């Protein structure tokens, strides 16, 4: 069964069809890329998949379950986590606490247990700390665990966002331009990390990216979006050599 199955997904904003009849199937464990020119509707697709927007039409199935029109929280609990194009960290929390916030629904104790510092509080906090540190290590952020998220350099903020998303233990991870603003060196490291994340955590990954080196380097399949519609989909190499795709990017 496919991990993600999208059929006929559409949404309009004031008469403009931002996403129009979008279909997508991603098999479990795949590294999938969503590309297209600026304004093609890529981030809108992410917002539809994660419940930020409710689709006008269409069906979204995650691992066989219908999640169409569910709330952001329900969809996250159902198994989709994401990062944001414009980084959205919990700025006034420490790096460690950002990841621990991601563990919110996995290592739990009640508010009462928290306020009165009952034994479960200490036990679960300890579990959370070691789990969060483990994830931070993957992203080479463990040394910065105690500093405020807003004090991290840009590239590390992007990594922290991915770490926080992984902490929610998703089946499907959505990355919105993970390499934006990174230098070629950092992008290279990021590619290794993304591959590593897929192996270690067994996740299916869907990413939006403009950096063609990253896309062709790690994505197995691609969908090209143009003016809200699917231009073409298929194996990365075939898609990137498709003349229609080149026209869409460079113009006539």
């Amino acid at each position, binding site marked *: 069964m496919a991990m993600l199955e999208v059929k006929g997904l559409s949404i309009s904003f004031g008469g403009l069809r931002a996403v129009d009849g979008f279909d997508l199937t991603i098999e479990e464990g795949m590294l999938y890329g969503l590309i297209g020119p600026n304004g093609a509707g890529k981030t809108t697709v992410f917002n539809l998949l994660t419940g930020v927007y409710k689709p006008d039409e269409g069906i979204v199935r995650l691992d066989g379950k219908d999640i169409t029109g569910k709330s952001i929280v329900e969809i996250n609990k159902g198994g989709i986590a994401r990062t944001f194009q414009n980084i959205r960290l*919990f700025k006034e*929390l420490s790096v460690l606490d950002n990841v621990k916030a991601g563990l919110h629904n996995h290592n739990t104790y009640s508010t009462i247990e928290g*306020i009165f510092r009952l034994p479960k509080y200490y036990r679960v906090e300890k579990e959370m700390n070691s789990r969060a540190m483990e994830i931070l290590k993957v992203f080479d952020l463990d040394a910065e665990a105690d500093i405020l998220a807003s004090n991290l350099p840009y590239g590390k903020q992007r990594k922290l966002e991915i770490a926080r998303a992984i902490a929610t233990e998703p089946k499907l991870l959505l990355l919105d331009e993970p390499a934006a603003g990174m230098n070629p060196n950092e992008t290279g490291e990021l590619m290794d990390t993304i591959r590593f994340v897929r192996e270690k955590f067994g996740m299916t990954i869907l990413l939006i990216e403009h950096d063609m080196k990253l896309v062709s380097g790690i994505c197995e399949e691609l969908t090209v979006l143009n003016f809200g519609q699917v231009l073409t989909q298929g194996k990365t190499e075939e898609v990137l050599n498709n003349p229609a795709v080149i026209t869409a990017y460079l113009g006539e």
Partner: protein
Amino acid sequence: MKMNILKTMNKTTKSNTITYLLVAVVYLVVQLLVTTGNISSLMKGLLVPLCVYVIAAISLNLVVGISGELSLGHAGFMCVGAYASAFFSVLVGDALPEMLRFILAILIGAGVAAIFGILIGIPVLKLRGDYLAIVTLAFGEIIKNLMNVMYVGRDADGLHFSVTDTASLNMAPDGEVIIKGALGITGTPKNSTFTIGVILILIALFIILNLIHSRSGRAIMAIRDNRIAAESVGINITKYKLMAFSISAALAGVAGVLYAHNLSTLTVKKFDYNTSILILVFVVLGGIGNIRGSMIAAVILTVLPEVLRGLSDYRMLIYAIVLIAMMLFNWAPSAINWRAKIKAKIKNRNMKEAE
């Protein structure tokens, strides 16, 4: 020895310990001054109100600083707590031992205020920013207005309610009016003491500080920092916003209980938006999200007008100027830069001297 213990603790535990110790030390010093008779009767009269304002300030900081929502109706929750508890205390009278009655009064004040917090929070928390602020202000004023026209009496048949006047309560001649509209509640037992006030401050601190450094507190702050990101990691916005709002309301209710049992007459006059704003001033001046800071600001700004009493007519004027000056000094970016420069200069000089 103590310094060594402080050094080995982690940063938050250390900061919390300092906060508790600060309260304890101030308490001991004040007690010493009281027993040796070195404190004016005026100041002595201020001790319980000080505790009231401190609890109100730290509880408001939970909403404004930790949850990140501007509330201008905090006095409304104090009002609810004060009225519910005073009503209970007068109603029960001597049927219960004094201490038990007061503890129950505190719990009732907190509970009723928390219920109001939830009832008001559900609609209010749908709004954002300044709109939320104006609606909290509106709720505060509504509570004040309704309390002002409420009449409750008791006779052999039970309780009687009215919103017009005493006569329409239709009571038996031997009945007793407990809440008398604008005249409020009279004859509340004066159970509040400085010691109880300080104990309640410590309890409030315990609840707030432990909440902040727990899973729920993290969720509340995550929502404050980025609402959509918090939802995207599965944090239920309504639940945690409501939690912060209602715990804050409950503690404001406790402040109200303390206030009501400090004076024998309780009216709504004290609970208008000016009081809400005054408490907000404590929070912002002491540092948004800084619990210890709001305690200190509450104490300074409550004592300041009394210290300035010698200046009679000018005291509130000076108070206003001091407030503006402190805000500019604490918050203006240019003032912050200037302070940083001075600090660096002093540091440099010290280093040169050390060489």
